[in-house]
């Protein structure tokens, strides 16, 4: 029974990784039209270096992902602090309000943002992309750092205060160090969410200012160049590393801070 289970799992994994394997293989395939069999070559990676639209889109993606990560983590952490540690009415309602960005199909949110930004003159472009990405990332951040905060006992801060710490000092010397793994994990997650975000970016991009996924999409519509495979392989590697770090930190975070 167990062997059957494992075999099935491996079959599913094979299914999941088939296109990814193809993508990586094609990145190294000399053929311009993806004909098989594969002739190994790194020509697409080399061509990448001079592909301006792709490069600038990649740069935008990275920039926005970094900014999103920082802003969303800060803002989300503050919100999580208030939601977890303070008692007040309407807490459940506020928690529910965090769901729309995740629950509502991104198509609707993206088009709504487009409509609103256009109407109010915010327009499209890098700033719009940033606003949109951060809005999407905030709920994820809150849902990651929230539970992390829950494992940190409240009486630790009380103990610090009884020893002479002001509330602020207690937070920075006691709670924050213990919270850090969750916060960093959330930052990485936000980075990954932003990097891979397509739908919202699609609607908020302006001609010449777009992110990598959007660039890839228009490329696909026009006639795919294999450099896409190359850069996607690179991004896959980056995302994988991030996820691995994230997983390590989640493990760490759940073991410290609780007695």
């Amino acid at each position, binding site marked *: 029974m167990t062997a059957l289970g*494992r075999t099935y799992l491996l079959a*599913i994994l094979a299914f999941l990784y088939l296109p*990814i394997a193809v993508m990586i293989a094609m990145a190294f395939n000399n053929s311009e039209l993806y004909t098989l069999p594969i002739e190994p070559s790194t020509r697409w990676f080399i061509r990448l270096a001079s592909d301006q639209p792709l490069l600038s889109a990649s740069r935008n993606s990275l920039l926005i992902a970094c900014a999103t990560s920082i802003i969303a983590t800060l803002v989300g952490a503050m919100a999580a602090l208030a939601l977890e540690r303070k008692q007040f009415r309407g807490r459940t309602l*506020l928690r529910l309000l965090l769901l729309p960005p995740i*629950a509502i199909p991104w198509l609707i949110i993206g088009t709504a943002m487009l409509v609103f930004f256009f109407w109010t003159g915010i327009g499209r472009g890098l700033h719009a992309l940033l606003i949109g990405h951060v809005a999407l990332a905030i709920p994820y951040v809150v849902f990651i750092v929230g539970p992390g905060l829950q494992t940190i006992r409240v009486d630790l801060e009380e103990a610090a205060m009884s020893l002479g710490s002001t509330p602020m000092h207690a937070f920075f010397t006691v709670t924050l160090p213990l919270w850090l793994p969750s916060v960093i994990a959330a930052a990485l997650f936000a980075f990954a969410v932003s990097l891979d975000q397509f739908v919202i970016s699609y609607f908020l991009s302006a001609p010449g200012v777009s992110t990598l996924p959007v660039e890839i999409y228009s490329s696909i519509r026009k006639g795919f160049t294999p450099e896409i495979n190359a850069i*996607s392989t690179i991004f896959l590697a980056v995302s994988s590393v991030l996820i691995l770090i994230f997983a390590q930190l989640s493990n760490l975070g759940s073991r410290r801070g609780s007695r």
Partner: protein
Amino acid sequence: MLLAPAYGWLTLAVFLPLGAMLFFSFLKAAPFGPRPLQFTIDNYLAFARRPYLVGVAWTSVEIGLWTTGLCAILGLPAALALARATRGRSQQVLFLLIVLPFWTNGLVRIFSWTMVLREGGVLDYALHLVAPSAPTFSLLYSFPAIIIGLVHAYLPYMILTCYLSAAAIDDAYIEAARSLGARAPIIFAKVVLPLCLPGLISGSILIFVPVIGSFMEPRILGGRIGVTMGTIIEDQFVQAFNWPLGAALSFTMLGAVLLVFALARGFPRRLLSA
């Protein structure tokens, strides 16, 4: 206060836009220009005025159901296998491997599928290696292609949610059933399945909702026959510039989504008490 930045941001970026779109959906034409605003509910009656939309909507639902169903059938056994047939290190590694595809670029994955499914693609090539005289084989630009792409993209969600339910099943339940003489199929039907139901349901919601709004996969994998609510809505905003209609259609779809949520909350309770 601590909360202000987060909720302020969300208001600006999500709630106000949604409100604006609601407003738009009642307009005759986008309010950019000298003409005065004219209100109408015509856009919401789109389904009545443009009957082909009903067909499109139905296609979207069909795609949603197929995708969700296949994900459930494929995903639940995988989750069970992961939860019960693996342990420790290998379990963690397998878990990460299943989650990793989330972070590959969705678009590139879809395009990779085109390379697999099309004429001269991986499947065709493999077929010809085995049976050289067979006709060329292409699955691309077909309904199954869309489903394959979507299932591939969303399967990890189902595996994840079902895994969380499956991992929580106490071995004691299964042992108890076995000691009462139940064989494997009965144990599955009466013990495992009901306990995994929450995972199945949340997975189904996580999958069905985005899928009925999808437009990338239908376009790329379905070509001309890939017309869904998602692609229609996208068109209104990007090509036809009929924003009010797009807005109305979006909210109709949102209504359907909320309906699904509401049903899903009442569903398990009724099922479990049966």
